[in-house]
C-alpha cells in the first residue's frame, strides 16, 4: 500500500503555481478549535493554500502557578502541579518531589520508588493513548479513538484504585507515596498499601494495552489517507529541534537517541531493560510511530517492575511532620510523556519555595510552530499541530 508522494506534492504545486492575482489573507484559528487541545489561537498569513508568519497566541489559561507556589507549602504544591499537564498529572509530581527530596537529602524506600515508576509509566501510557485517539481523529479517522480510550479507561481505573484520582492523583509525598485511604491490607503495620491484586491487574492491563497497540497499528498504518497526510509532512530536523528546546517523543522522532530516563537518576530506570525509540525522518508519521512504540516500551518497563518490586516494605521515609526544605537550589528534570519537565527549586529553609521555575515540555515544544508551519499547506496545520501532542495546561502553566 504505497502512496505516490511525488504525485500528491506535484498536484499541490501545480495548484499554487498558477499565476493569479492573489491577495494575502489573515486566517485566525482558535482559540476554541477542537484540534488545539485547549485554548490556543493561531494567526497565520495565508497566500492561497500556503500559510506564512504563523503566530501562536497563548496565555488564555495562564494560572500563575509559579507565583502561587511561593505562597503554598511543599505538600500543597503537588496538588497544583498535577494540573499543569492534566493528561499525565501523575508524572508532573515526580520531578518536583525529587527536587525537594534532593535538598532535604531524604532517601526514598525502594518499594515507594517502584510504585512511583509504575504509575509514571502508566501515566505515559494514558497520555500516549489520548494521542492515539485524538490524532487520527483530527485526520479524519474516528475508529482508533474507541480502541485507545477503552484501554486508557482501564489504565485510569487502576491509577484511581491506588491514588483515588483519575487525573489529579496528588499521590506523592516528600519521602514516599501515600496510597488511597482504606486501600490495601488493613493490618496495623501497613495500614495503607497498594490495593489487593493491583499488580496482577496491572499485568493483565498491560496485555490488553499491547493488544490494542497492535489493533491501532493495523488501523492507522494501513490507512492510506493518514499515510498521505503524515509522511513527509512537518519535517523537523534534529538541530532545529534542539535549538528550540523540543524534547521527548518529538525530539526522538527526529532521530535523536536521547531519553532522560536513561541519563538522569530520578527514578530507578537503570534496573530495567527498555529501548529508546528513535524515528528516522522527523515527520508527522514518525512522531505518531514513536509514541506507539513508547506505549509498548512502557508496558515492558511496567512488567519488569511488577516482577522486581519488593513484596513488602515501607512506603514512606521518615520526615518531619511539617516539611521544611533546607536552604539550597537545584534543577531536577524528568522524561514526561510530553518531553522534558523540570523544576528549578530555590528554597530558603522555609515551608514553601522561595522560587519555583516550572519547565514544562509543551511550552518549548510549541515554540517550534512558527518555524515548522512556515510555508505549510493550510490543511497541514492540523496534521502538524496534532503530531506535536501538546496540552495547553502544560503550555500556559
Amino acid at each position, binding site marked *: 500500500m504505497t502512496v505516490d508522494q511525488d504525485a500528491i506534492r506535484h498536484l499541490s504545486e501545480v495548484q499554487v503555481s498558477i499565476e493569479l492575482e492573489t491577495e494575502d489573507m489573515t486566517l485566525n484559528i482558535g482559540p476554541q478549535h477542537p484540534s488545539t487541545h485547549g485554548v490556543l489561537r493561531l494567526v497565520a498569513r495565508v497566500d492561497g493554500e500556503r500559510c506564512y508568519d504563523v503566530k501562536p497566541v497563548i496565555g488564555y489559561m495562564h494560572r500563575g502557578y509559579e507565583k*502561587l507556589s511561593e505562597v503554598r507549602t511543599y505538600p500543597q504544591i503537588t496538588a497544583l502541579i498535577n494540573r499543569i499537564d492534566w493528561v499525565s498529572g501523575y508524572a508532573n509530581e515526580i520531578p518536583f518531589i525529587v527536587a525537594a527530596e534532593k535538598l532535604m537529602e531524604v532517601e526514598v524506600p525502594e518499594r515507594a520508588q517502584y510504585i512511583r515508576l509504575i504509575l509514571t509509566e502508566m501515566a505515559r501510557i494514558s497520555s500516549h493513548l489520548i494521542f492515539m485517539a485524538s490524532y487520527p481523529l483530527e485526520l479524519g479517522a474516528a475508529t482508533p479513538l474507541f480502541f485507545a480510550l477503552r484501554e486508557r479507561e482501564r489504565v485510569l481505573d487502576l491509577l484511581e484504585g491506588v491514588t483515588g484520582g483519575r487525573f489529579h492523583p496528588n499521590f506523592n509525598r516528600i519521602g514516599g507515596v501515600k496510597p488511597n485511604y482504606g486501600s490495601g491490607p488493613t493490618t496495623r503495620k501497613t495500614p495503607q498499601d497498594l490495593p489487593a491484586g493491583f499488580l496482577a491487574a496491572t499485568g493483565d492491563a498491560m496485555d490488553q494495552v499491547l493488544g490494542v497497540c497492535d489493533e491501532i497499528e493495523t488501523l492507522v498504518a494501513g490507512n492510506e489517507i493518514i499515510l498521505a497526510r503524515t509522511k513527509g509532512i512537518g519535517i523537523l530536523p534534529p538541530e532545529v529541534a534542539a535549538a528550540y528546546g523540543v524534547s521527548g517523543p518529538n525530539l526522538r522522532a527526529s532521530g535523536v537517541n536521547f531519553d532522560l530516563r536513561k541519563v538522569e537518576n530520578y527514578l530507578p530506570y537503570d534496573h530495567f531493560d527498555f529501548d529508546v525509540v528513535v524515528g528516522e525522518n522527523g515527520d508527522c508519521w514518525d512522531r505518531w510511530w514513536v509514541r506507539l512504540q513508547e506505549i509498548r516500551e512502557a508496558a515492558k518497563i511496567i512488567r519488569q517492575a511488577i516482577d522486581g518490586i519488593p513484596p513488602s516494605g515501607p512506603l514512606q521515609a521518615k520526615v518531619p511532620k511539617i516539611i521544611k526544605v533546607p536552604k539550597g537550589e537545584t534543577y531536577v528534570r524528568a522524561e514526561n510523556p510530553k518531553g522534558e519537565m523540570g523544576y528549578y527549586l530555590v528554597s530558603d529553609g522555609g515551608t514553601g519555595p522561595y522560587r519555583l521555575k516550572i519547565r514544562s515540555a509543551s511550552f518549548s515544544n510549541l515554540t517550534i510552530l512558527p518555524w515548522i508551519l512556515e510555508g505549510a499547506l493550510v490543511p497541514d496545520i492540523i496534521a502538524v499541530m496534532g503530531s506535536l501532542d501538546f496540552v495547553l495546561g502544560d503550555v500556559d502553566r
Partner: protein
Amino acid sequence: MTSNPSDIETTVHPMQDFADSVAEVVGGVAEILHDTVKVTLANDRWVSAHSVARDELDLVFFSWLSAIDWANEVEAGDALKDEVEERLELLSTVGDLTEGKRVTFSTTLDSGLPTVATLVDVYAGANWHEREAAEMFGIEFIGHPNPTKIYLPDGFIGNPLRKSYPLLSREVKPWPGTVDVEGMPEGPSTENPEA
C-alpha cells in the same frame, strides 16, 4: 537517589571535572548545587558564553530561561531569612543530547533597570522564554525580535513574579491553608515539636 552527604565532603563530586571545564571554557565561576552545575557569568559575557557552550561544549539543547528576584521586602510568600543584596538573577539551562550533561548559567542583573542581550541568535528557543521573563520580571532583552507580552494581556501593568508584586487573590481573601503550618496570628502556634 540522593547522594550520601558524607561522600560529597570527602570525595570529589563526579560532576566536578565537567563543571571546571565549562567554567574555564566560558569564563565563569562554577559550583555544584545538588547535582546541578551552575556557572556564574559576568553580565557582558552572557551571550558569548552561551555561544561557546553550544559550539565548543556541544550543549545544543536549550532547556529554559528564567529569573529569580532576590529581594528583602516581599509582598507575597515568605521573606528571606537573611538580608541579601537586592538583584535579579537571570538563569538559563542548556544541555547536550548524548550523555545528559547540563549547565545552568547565571548572571546578575540590576533590580531597577535590568537589561541583557538576547539569546535568540544563539538558541532560537530562547524567544518565548525571554518574552515570559520580560513580562514577569521586567527584564529588557536587547535585540529581541518580538518583545511583546506572551501570557499577560496587552496593557497589563506590573511584573507578577517580582517579589514586590502582591498576590491579588490573597489580598482579597487570605488563604486559610497557612493555619496548618504557621498558626493563626492571634492563636497559639500549631508547630509540631518534631519539625
